[in-house]
């Protein structure tokens, strides 16, 4: 198996979102893609009660060595892939640092406190400015909106994976994406996912 050069070893990625958004699936796809490259991948995540409307995170540790702990230490994240805008803020507070990169889907999911009017959801412009202040590089992508044009909002996650490949910090390959998905998807679904992946790559280029 060929060894990759990583910008950091371990390279730490957090995929975050709200329970039900497909966080676990997205982390598994990215993990599988990198594992196929011969890299050692450790993914830490929480399931169960935390799924019910709560914030969820998957921690990916990518290394040319062995398994790392399933939780990234505070302040040590290199790339945040956020499926929901305010979740990027929450992750930055604990795991961010001046050199972190952020990929963020723009579609908000309102927490119950926002629906009830007890709390306010910030404007996207505000969130963008905050993320800009706290990161080295950032991309805000209308992934859910684009995915709806393809007929299924969940494809937004695939676009985010494509975008992560597009920014070029990790050895994420379209071929590995295809192979990771081919194990579990029918041919027509695979084609739609590849289309979403390519759109994602295009969004950051």
């Amino acid at each position: 198996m060929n060894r990759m050069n990583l910008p950091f070893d371990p390279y730490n990625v957090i995929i975050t979102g709200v329970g039900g958004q497909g966080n676990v699936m997205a982390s598994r796809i990215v993990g599988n893609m990198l594992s196929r490259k011969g890299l050692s991948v450790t993914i830490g995540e929480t399931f169960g009660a935390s799924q019910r409307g709560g914030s969820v995170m998957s921690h990916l540790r990518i290394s040319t060595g062995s398994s790392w702990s399933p939780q990234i230490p505070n302040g040590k994240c290199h790339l945040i892939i956020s499926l929901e805008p305010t979740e990027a803020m929450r992750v930055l507070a604990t795991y961010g640092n001046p050199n972190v990169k952020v990929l963020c889907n723009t579609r908000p999911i309102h927490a119950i406190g926002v629906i009830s009017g007890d709390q306010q959801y910030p404007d996207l412009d505000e969130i963008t400015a905050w993320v800009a202040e706290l990161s080295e590089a950032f991309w805000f992508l209308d992934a859910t909106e684009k995915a709806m044009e393809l007929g299924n909002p969940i494809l937004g996650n695939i676009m985010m994976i494509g975008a992560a490949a597009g920014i070029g910090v990790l050895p994420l390959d379209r071929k590995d994406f295809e192979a990771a998905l081919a194990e579990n998807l029918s041919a027509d679904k695979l084609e739609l996912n590849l289309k979403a992946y390519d759109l994602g790559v295009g969004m950051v280029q």
Partner: protein
Amino acid sequence: MSSILRGEAGTRHLLMGNEAIARGALEAGVCVAAGYPGTPSSEIIETLAGVSAQQNVYVEWSVNEKVAMEVAAAGSFAGLRSMCVMKQNGVNVGSDFLLHLAITGTRGGMVLVACDDPGALSSANEGESRHFARMLEIPLLEPADFQEAKDMIKWAFELSEEIKNVVMVRSVTRLSHASGNVIFGKLPEIEKKAFFHHEGSIMDPLQGPMSSLPVVHKHDQQQEKLKQAVARYEESAFNAYSGPRSPELLLVTGSACYLYSKEAVSLLGVEDRVGLLKLGTTWPLPPKLLEKYLGLTDKILVVEEVIPFLEENIKISAAEFAARVGPKTFFGKREGYIPQVGEMNSDRVVSALSKILSLEYEAVPESYSQRALELSNSGAPGRDLTFCAGCPHRASFWTIHNTLQMDGRQGFVCGDIGCYSLAMLPTGFNTLKTLHAMGSGIGLASGFGKLAQFGMQQPVVAVVGDSTFFHAALPALINAIHHQSDITLVVLDNSGTAMTGFQSHPGLAVDATGNQAPAIDVVKVCQAMGATVRVSDPFEPEKTQQTLFELFEIQGLKVLVLKQMCALSPEKKAKKMFEVSVDETVCIGQACGCNQLCTRIFKCPGLNWDKEKQVSKIDEFICVGCGMCASICPSGAIRKKEVA
């Protein structure tokens, strides 16, 4: 999930810890696997159920953990390799049988897998299963990573077969639910043949009846078995030391804490000062190995989660070896270096190491972390846990809560374990007033219902889910009926063990492996026991409320079964019942007097408040079309149209 069968020996795969455990069991030639669903253990049985036909494994979701242990033990008694799987509190449930099994011994290798949840990430407790190994005198193993999770299970079967007793393997959430790379071993081709030998003498552990009698004799044999296990532990590769020959500090750890400890040492760059002793065989501790490493230095830090299990056992050993290894200074939980509650992480280990070694550590510049925290606190509204959109529990608790309010006698509801435990929170209108173990809601209600002689007039209600009903509520229900306790039990029947991912239970017509199975009818069971039973649909709040009021008037034990499938079940997700919409000409917003009942009180995530138009609106992506909000809108602005 079936990917655990794909791939030859020697190939490398990305597996969840629980999948690695399942693969290990298959490589060991497991024949019987039984468990009860519970986070973080559920995927082990699920994974095995998915391959049971190809691999000829008998897999079941047992009614509870005690029965799961008994079913697995039967396999072992008949000479087969068997496994039972549960979360931490499941071991409590099974412990009565386990006490007797541990004295009796086993035949075919038998492994008990307990998955603990330090930090209670998905539990109502952060209880420890490890002390059962010490209390009941059986060997305990703790894997530290994904490869070990697989390899250790296989070895546990071999050890069990060698010493003829059950072996416990303890995982934790951060291993069971994390994923990592695992190199596959071979799947064995063995003949699986069951036969229970019972014709020999009671003193014959291989040919005689299986029992703990005569107790003192068998207990003595049990302790001999432990000594055999310790002898194997002394040579085990699951215990490993890394670090300098004469470290300043010896860090002893195991389980997922090994990965945190290793990372903390690397973050601080103290590889040349700290020796890391990773223990995989954590009870009983192998004395020779421990003596060797305790002799390396005078300072010992023990890193583990929740109770100081390892720490106390190491201290006992250090006292025993004191004459040879000299006095030690310990840095652990008792000394305040490692927290006694919550889960471990690298930062906690960094903090302990920094204190002991007098080091400064700053993960990021303080100006950055303060600013990030400030922005996050003001800019990321908190996400309280909530029932899903279209969850029947929200509808059930809406009605139960309102009925008790209208009744006006300060009635209350005893809660139980499942998604519906969330009704302790605003999403269930804070309806639950007690929450304990599986089945404890009805047990507590049984007691409350007998307090009238001391002047208690409050209506007593208990809720229980369909899976929990079978697991542990039945004995309490029998108790309540026999003692004529004046209570109402509401069974929240959503057709599955929803919280842990729709595992089957005895009330369903299907078993763990997808085969048809006779369903046990909750209504008939309750009727047969003499309860007054009614059935209602929680999505019909008026009828449900009326039924509850009627039941409150009847003396004795009443059961209301609220039947409606979980909104996340595959059948439900396939099709909306209703198209729901808001007629903006009818919704009069703040002028209504309802005070935004739908979004402010009912708070289904499928609803939103349009700030500009000042009307309620439906979020098309999130709404699953249950139609409940249409039933509660006082002005009739929320409309539902049946989907053809």
